Every structure is written in structure tokens, then in C-alpha cells.
């Protein structure tokens, strides 16, 4: 057993427990995005930062990857931690403003403004879907590709993976895009990733071929490449796009 101090409370836990688990067990809430029970800790979203150590040696660490240590002094909501979390949430809002999960978290942390350049990504690179696919679904159909600012998540070669079973697990866990796909109801299964009001993947007859899970939408791309859209539909799509622009 390891004895450590959380927010002034002396607690003892099993060896190998992470600070996040300890904190949550003793009732100190820590917000997370990339953490999920059953998946290996990853430390990508940085939302779970806590402050450890004392005085000038105090530092911020991600609690989801930091194992409990003997005599460790942890503060889960010091001024420094809260400030860091708010900036992280602001940055997340700057990249993925449409995510309900991030919006709710930002609201809960009383964030009223966003000072960074606004982007409209639909991925925060938290790697939840990649770990879900590998560790729970045993498929390894999707993974990280590229590096740096061109890093993306998806299937190799952007074609449908042979090992993907269309389980939808990746969509289910995604904090940035989970509300945009209903999967089980084919009529509502619009990914929105292509921002196409008449998505080609809906026009496709067999449901088994629908694959709206990853961005870019593979079905849309293949369909667009193999057959040119009929002129009538093209017109309709264009009109709809203009309408959106007008609204915006």
C-alpha cells in the first residue's frame, strides 16, 4: 500500500493506481476527455492535469498517466491547475467548437470567451477511437497517420479496412463527433463529415456498404471518383450549399 496526500487528505492506495483513479475514488472530480475505463491511459487531452510536489518544485502532470507514489502531495484544483485547465479547454474550443462534450465542459468551467484563432476541426487527436479499435474491438482498423500538424486518424490508404467490422465503437467513444452519427438507424445515419446535404453514402443501396465513420468520408470519396454526380442532383446540392452560405 502507498500513502499519499490528496488535497490535504491522507489516503492509502494499491501500488500501480494512477492519480486519476485515486482522486476519483476519494471524490475529487477531475475532468477528462481521452480517458476511458478499459482503455490504456494516453495523456493526450491534458485536461486531467493536477499539481504535484511543493514550493518551487511543484509541477503539473497528467493524472491519468501518473502512478501514485509514496508521500506524494497532490492538488487536484489549485489555482494553477484550474488556470491550466481553462486554457486547455479554450484551445479545445478553438479547434473543435461544435463538440457537445467540449462545449459542456467549457460551460462547466465557466469559460466565457475563446481567444485563439478559430478552427473547425472534428478531431482532437485524443486517440480514444484508435485505442477502442485496438484494445476493445481487437481490430486495429484505424490508426494515426502522418506527423505534426498533418497528423490524422483513419484507415491505411483511406480505403475501407479489411479488418473493420463497422462496429461503430470509434464513433461511440469520440468526444468530438459522437453526436453526429446514429449508426443503428440507417435513415438517420448521416455522418456530416462531408457537409453534403445529399450524401452519396445514403444513396448507396446496401446498408452494409455505408461507412460514415471516418473523416474524410470514404464512401463519398469513392462514389465521387467512380461516378460523376447527375447534373440534377449537383444543381440541388449547389443550391443547398448556397442556402447555407446565406444563413451564415
Amino acid at each position, binding site marked *: 500500500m502507498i500513502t499519499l496526500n490528496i488535497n490535504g487528505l491522507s489516503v492509502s492506495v494499491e501500488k500501480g493506481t494512477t492519480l486519476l483513479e485515486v482522486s476519483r475514488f476519494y471524490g475529487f472530480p477531475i475532468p477528462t476527455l481521452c480517458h476511458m475505463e478499459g482503455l490504456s491511459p494516453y495523456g493526450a487531452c491534458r485536461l486531467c492535469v493536477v499539481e504535484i510536489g511543493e514550493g518551487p518544485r511543484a509541477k503539473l502532470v497528467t493524472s491519468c498517466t501518473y502512478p501514485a507514489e509514496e508521500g506524494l502531495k497532490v492538488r487536484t484544483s489549485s489555482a494553477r491547475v484550474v488556470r491550466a485547465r481553462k486554457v486547455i479547454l479554450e484551445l479545445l474550443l478553438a479547434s473543435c467548437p461544435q463538440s457537445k462534450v467540449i462545449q459542456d465542459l467549457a460551460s462547466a468551467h465557466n469559460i466565457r470567451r475563446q481567444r485563439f484563432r478559430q478552427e473547425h476541426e472534428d478531431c482532437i487527436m485524443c486517440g480514444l477511437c484508435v485505442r477502442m479499435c485496438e484494445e476493445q474491438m481487437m481490430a*486495429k482498423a484505424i490508426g494515426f*497517420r502522418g*506527423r505534426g500538424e498533418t497528423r490524422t486518424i483513419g484507415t491505411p490508404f483511406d480505403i475501407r479496412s479489411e*479488418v473493420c467490422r463497422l462496429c461503430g465503437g470509434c464513433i461511440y467513444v469520440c468526444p468530438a463527433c459522437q453526436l453526429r452519427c446514429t449508426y443503428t438507424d440507417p435513415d438517420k445515419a448521416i455522418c456530416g463529415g462531408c457537409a453534403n446535404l445529399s450524401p452519396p453514402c445514403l444513396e448507396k443501396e446496401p446498408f452494409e456498404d455505408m461507412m460514415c465513420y471516418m473523416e474524410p468520408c470514404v464512401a463519398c470519396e469513392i462514389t465521387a471518383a467512380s*461516378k460523376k454526380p447527375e447534373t440534377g442532383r449537383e444543381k440541388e446540392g449547389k443550391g443547398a450549399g448556397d442556402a447555407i452560405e446565406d444563413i451564415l
Partner: protein
Amino acid sequence: MNRAEKGEEALLSDKGEGLCATCLHLETCEYLRSFGSPRFECDEFEGIRPSALAGIIDKFGSAHGGIISILEAVQAKYGYLPRHALNLTAERTGRSLVDIYGVATFYKSFSLKPRGKHLLSVCLGTACHVRGAQAVAREFEERLDVKAGDTTADKEFTLHTVNCLGACALGPVAVVDGHYFSKVNASKVRSIIDKSKTGLDAVDAETDIRVFPLETSCPRCNHSFMDPERLLDGHPSIRVTAAFADKHGWLRLSSLYGSYSVESEDPIPKDTIVNFFCPHCHAEIAGATVCTDCGAPMVAMIVRGGGMLQICSRRGCKNHMFDLV
């Protein structure tokens, strides 16, 4: 019928005229993707057979790690990483395609698209930038009619921009196939392209101080290999007997250290490992070591004045060592 077949059928029926004659794999044809038309009689699917890759993969072990080494070897063989080769690598090593694709896309030295014969890198680092590297890069793009990152239609050049080559004092720097060009400006671009086309390995033996002649002899009988009757690069050549496959004939190497000029009775295909024999005692000249670059046996010769010269026996490999005694 699986998805791949369905897709292929669709593609075939839509544009039947674009059918590649060799492999019928339009969907995976990198030439079609990169150049807009499939390459006829491409060696891709002839070359990339499980058996051809198995040797490469098994050499580096398939248990753990080794992906980078395998991919490097595959790229050395084909010049890029064909999709089919990645699939086979995944199959053979038992790793998932996602891992291998992740590694292949992570490193800039790996390319998933066919690359040209010459790799041309223009430095856009800070030091080069302030000296006008942008204009140099633009000039290269215009002269070659490609965008940075792409390959010319004749598959001669692949143009890359890089962020720093570590030779800032020489900037703006351009590198073609490992040869550095310093203080490049827009007017020098054309000569660099022309030089690259004619071959950069031809050294100017008269002026380059790195190039000096060596007199070599057989390590067994100590008879000289030098042949004053036939000059290569203006110096007596090194004459040995070379054997490969069922061919057997003379081979003359330039005696200039730093020059790779070579003449032979029979043309030696690239990548062939050649057995060298002494024309006097007819013993095979073989070194005790193997090439650190390609693993082929090294050939050892005594250098007059003291020393041992070792050259790689694989045609095209330029690895050599000169040990002074």
C-alpha cells in the same frame, strides 16, 4: 464478391481505355494516382511478390520492431513504398497494416508515391530563406513544371523542399542525390538540373583534390593489377577478371580514389554481386568483411605504399574502405 472487386469492376467499366496491361490492379496503381495514367508493363506486380519480399522481411526478423528497417529495404528495392508491398509486409510480419502505414507516413524519408530518378531537395530553412531560397524553389518548380513534393511527368526528378540541411553557411542550398550545391540562385538552377541529368558521379579528376590515383596489387600473389595500356580517367586502370552468372571477362576500374568509372567486357546489371579474380594467379580476390551498406562481400586489394583497399562487390554499391597500414 468483395468490395475491392466491385470497385475494380466499376473502374474498369467506366474507363476501359485506362486499363493497365500488366497487373489489372487499377485501384492500387500508384502510377495512375500520381501521373494520371497507368504505366504499361510496370514491374510493380511482377516484382512485388510475397516471395520477393519474404527475403527482405525475414532478414530483419518479424517478432518485434524492425518495421523501419524493413520499410527502408523495401524502399531501397522499389524506390518507394508500393501499397501492395505494405500489405504483404503486414501479412508477413503479423503486424497490423495500421502500424506499418503509421510508420511509413510518419517519416519523411519514406514515400508512398513513386519517385523520380533524381531526388532534388531545396532548403527553405531560415538562413537559406533570407538569402532568397523561395525564389530558387520557385525557379525549380517552374523549370521542372512540378509543385514541391511531386515528381515530373518524365519521372526524372522529384522536387522536395526541406526545412534545414545543416549547411546554413552555404545557403541557399540545394541537394541532388546527395550532392550539395551551395549559394544557389535562380540563374544556377538550370545548370544544376542539366548536371543532374548527365550524372553527378562523374568527378572532375583534374581539379578535385579528393581524387588521387592508387596502385593496387593482388593480395595473394602481389602481382600488380595496373594496366598502363588502357587508361581510365587519364590514369592506368586496375584490371581484374570478373565473373557473374555465367559470364566471365575482364573488368577495368579507375585507379582514381573517388572515381567510380568502370569498364567491363560484359555489361554488368545493377545490383549483381561480381566475383573478382586475379588475372595473374587466378585466385579469387575476396576480403574477409562484408559491405556495411548492402551486405555483399568486400573485395580486398593491396595498395602500393602500404594499405589495403576494400571495395564492395555489388555493382552500383559505392561503398569502399581504404585502410592505411
